């Protein structure tokens, strides 16, 4: 059994006690300690800024041309915090409880409670940085609802919350760059971890402009490189988002936890054809006001607006009256899939459901009429007023929809379908966010720790910033305190030389395949295998087939890949091939994990394990553990388990009815 090193004591006191007793590094020693941070999204940028403010020498790396472009920027809807500004009964405990329940009782109590505790500090910190959150007329912060909760605890900045939070963290980071405390390496990608005496002591990074391999020493290495949703090829992730840093860590001994726990987001713009390169999310905040439906009749041919109320099936409201359109993501996605599989889908592909704003527009219009004290208003005027309100709340999302589809969502219901959005699985970490390799940490989406088998909306931003601003600065320091006697190791050390050699050989072998097919074409095929067999629903037979298919694909990749251009130049195709090679290996592990977990929980739905109503059927007796996989060579992994002990919450079947 794996030991997560959870502090003893009451759940409420663990983090406070930890902070009160953890070891410290004095300011003079901090200046001698070097910390490497890979990735500059919310977790990486906030960690880099906070660690540098403390006095550590930070080296940060991102593959984009600027740290401001990390994919956290695309998060739309909001960030949760247990502020209880709305006086609607929120509290640290309730946020903790909702997150554990939302995760279908597959996350670690102590970590989630800490997350809920620091959530309020995050909002304060971001406001102090000048993050322009939405405000009410009284000048105070505004909140809205998200899925899986019955309170309003989500803070937001229109549909661009991730952008605003990331810009806040980016500015804090650039301030430290200016002060000389952070060295920023843009257009660099980590290629391997360097270990000395079993501890992480640096990385090999590739300069993506020159192709040069660089050696960097660090007393600690923090992987903040995000999730692996792009294993599916089509996802809401950015094109460059990749698993490479996390996968290299895994190959160097870091266990990979719950890789099959992936989140399929219910409200995305449906796939329109084979040319598609990525999918676009329509924020979960749209489910605050939008109603999701399909036609009641099979073979319905009328246009959406011509279908009368009596012939519409608001299937989420029908199946889950208590939470309605605001059920958690996994539940909403499966319900949409169920309707489409039963041939009630809409649009040309029939793989879509309607997200309808007509009722909300009318409701807001009526509120405006009474607010403005109007009388004698026509229905058209009410609708026009309502559209203005909806535009203010969701305008950028509606614009995005119309640009992509060419349809006007103010006039006709949007068509939506689930798409891969987030990965709850990731590098296994203990309470201190340290992986099974000493000195190697994982923060944000790159780790597995807080969201169990399903993440609630507006919690990814919260976790990324919690880890970076408020957790890692303490926990990494606690371990660095033992390292103060160890001077920086020169990168002429043989371990750095050997690691560089290994990376150079791998890149050369990829380049020397000289086959016929592009990295992109392999990636597309991998995505199809994983989406079909390890997507929204999974079966033992399908997963076994997928494992065989991925293994075959790997063979073909390594014998028929074509990379144009040279190694020692700016070569995006080489970068892509490097990432796809890692995705292929991860894809196999995801299927292995999904096959081993013979239960359904959260986003992991095994068709063999469901209730008569089609809900996920957990097996707490046999599977209440974190599956942490140790790499044992090509196609081989050993399973280690971390038992999940629920001391405060009593697991039950999730009920949103």
């Amino acid at each position, binding site marked *: 059994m794996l030991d997560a090193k959870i502090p003893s004591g009451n759940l409420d006191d663990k983090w406070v006690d930890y902070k009160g007793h953890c070891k410290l590094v004095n300011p003079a020693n901090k200046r001698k300690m070097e910390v490497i941070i890979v990735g500059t999204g919310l977790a990486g940028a*906030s960690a880099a800024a*906070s660690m540098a403010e403390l006095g550590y020498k930070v080296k940060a790396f991102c593959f984009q*041309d*600027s740290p*401001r*472009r990390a994919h956290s*920027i*695309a998060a739309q809807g909001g960030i949760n915090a247990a*502020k209880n500004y709305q006086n609607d009964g929120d509290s640290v405990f309730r946020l903790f409880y909702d997150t554990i329940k939302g995760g279908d009782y597959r996350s670690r109590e102590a970590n989630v409670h800490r997350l809920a505790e620091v959530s309020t*500090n995050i909002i*304060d*910190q971001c*406001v*102090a*940085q*000048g993050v*322009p*959150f*939405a*405000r*009410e007329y*009284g*000048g*105070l912060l505004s909140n809205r609802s998200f899925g899986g909760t019955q309170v309003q605890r989500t803070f937001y*900045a229109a549909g*661009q919350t991730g*952008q*605003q939070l990331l810009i806040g963290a*980016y*500015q*804090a980071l650039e*301030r430290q*760059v200016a002060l000389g405390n952070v060295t*920023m390496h*843009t257009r660099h990608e980590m290629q391997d971890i360097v270990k000395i005496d079993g501890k992480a002591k640096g990385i090999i990074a590739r300069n993506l*402009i020159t192709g040069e391999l660089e050696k960097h020493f660090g007393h600690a290495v923090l992987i903040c490189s995000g999730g692996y949703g792009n294993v599916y090829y089509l996802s*809401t992730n*950015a*094109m*460059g988002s990749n698993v490479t840093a996390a996968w290299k860590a895994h190959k160097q001994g870091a266990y990979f936890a719950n890789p099959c726990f992936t989140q399929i987001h219910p409200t995305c713009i449906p796939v*329109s*054809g084979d*040319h*598609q*390169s990525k999918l676009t999310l329509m924020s979960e905040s749209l489910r605050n006001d939008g109603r999701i439906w399909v036609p009641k009749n099979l073979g319905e041919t009328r246009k959406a607006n011509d279908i009368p109320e009596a012939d519409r099936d608001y299937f989420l409201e029908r199946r889950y009256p208590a939470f309605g359109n605001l059920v958690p993501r996994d539940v909403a996605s499966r319900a949409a899939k169920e309707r489409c599989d039963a041939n009630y889908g809409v*649009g040309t592909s029939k793989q879509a459901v309607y997200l309808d704003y007509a009722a909300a527009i009318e409701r807001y219009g009526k509120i405006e009429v009474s607010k403005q004290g109007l009388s004698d208003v026509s229905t058209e005027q009410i609708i026009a007023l309502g559209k203005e309100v909806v535009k203010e709340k969701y305008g950028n999302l509606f614009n995005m929809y119309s*640009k*992509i*589809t*060419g349809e006007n969502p103010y006039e006709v219901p949007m068509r939506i379908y689930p798409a891969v959005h987030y990965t709850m699985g990731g590098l296994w970490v203990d309470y201190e966010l340290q992986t099974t390799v000493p000195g190697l940490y994982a923060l944000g989406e790159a780790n597995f720790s807080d969201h169990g088998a399903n993440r609630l909306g507006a919690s990814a931003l919260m976790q990324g910033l919690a880890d970076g*601003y408020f957790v890692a600065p303490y926990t990494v320091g606690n371990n660095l305190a033992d390292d103060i006697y160890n001077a920086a190791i020169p990168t002429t050390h043989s371990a750095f030389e050997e690691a560089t050699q290994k990376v150079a050989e791998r890149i050369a072998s990829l380049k020397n395949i000289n086959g016929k*097919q*592009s990295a*992109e*074409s392999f990636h597309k095929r991998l995505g199809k295998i994983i989406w079909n067999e390890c997507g929204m629903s999974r079966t033992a037979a399908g997963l076994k087939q997928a494992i065989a298919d991925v293994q075959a694909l790997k063979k073909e990749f390594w014998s028929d890949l074509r990379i*144009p251009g040279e190694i020692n*130049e*700016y070569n*995006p*195709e080489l970068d892509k091939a490097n990432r796809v090679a890692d995705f292929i290996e991860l894809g196999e592990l995801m299927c292995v994990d999904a096959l081993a977990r013979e239960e359904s929980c959260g986003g992991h739905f095994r068709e063999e394990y469901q209730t008569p109503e089609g809900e996920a059927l957990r097996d707490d007796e046999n599977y209440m553990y974190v599956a942490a996989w140790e790499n044992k060579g090509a196609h081989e992994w050993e399973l280690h388990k971390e038992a999940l002990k629920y001391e405060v919450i009593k697991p039950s079947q999730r009920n949103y009815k």
Partner: protein
Amino acid sequence: MSQNTMNLKVKVWRQKNANAQGAFVTYDVAGISDEMSFLEMMDILNERLITEGGDPVAFDHDCREGICGMCSMYINGKPHGPWQANTTCQLHMRAFKDGETIVIEPWRANSFPIVKDLTVDRSAFDRIIQAGGYISVNTGNAVDGNSLPIEKQNADEAFAAAMCIGCGACVAACKNSSAMLFLSAKVSHLALLPQGAPERKSRVLKMVAQMDKEGFGSCTNTGACEATCPKEISIANIARLNNEYLGASLTAQ
């Protein structure tokens, strides 16, 4: 929705690296669906170039949903192409007609040197932010978020300025390659908020100095930046910047 396909020509700027001589090369792209995004059309071109043994066109892109600011193409004489308030990645092929020739160039500005083909180096923007585009507050120093009410109008205006994605289209559109819209968006965002007040004067002076040092041109109020900005950042921000700068300069020690 019905899909129409079209055959197009794309005339693309090819340049091996920063020091090489560049030139336009024209390619045929066939069977393009009008539902494709512009970058998906580029993907198809690149896939063909790779299978034919050629060198694919290098271009920056990442989120493909109009928010990361990475994509940067000068399409038919306009940064980000023909649509208003749009990024290249959100441009769809509906915007073009069968048989058309599309001209694609990189951002052109001395302060944005070309890396390869359509990829440019925009690190000058990061250095402008480093000069003062932040509020100096270390982690852990914050008071309760609601202890500082902010007038909704100011908060909304600050947000409108903070929407800048740092893509550089404003510079590419400007005949002087001025970065004033980018800079003014950040200065406005922080000047409109009470949290930004303590450093208000030094911020604007330092950021303008850095902008000049990077070699960006002057603003002559042509307004091409505002017209081309994918996030519709208002040119009124430049007026605010000028005010801030003048005020700060007059009272500077």
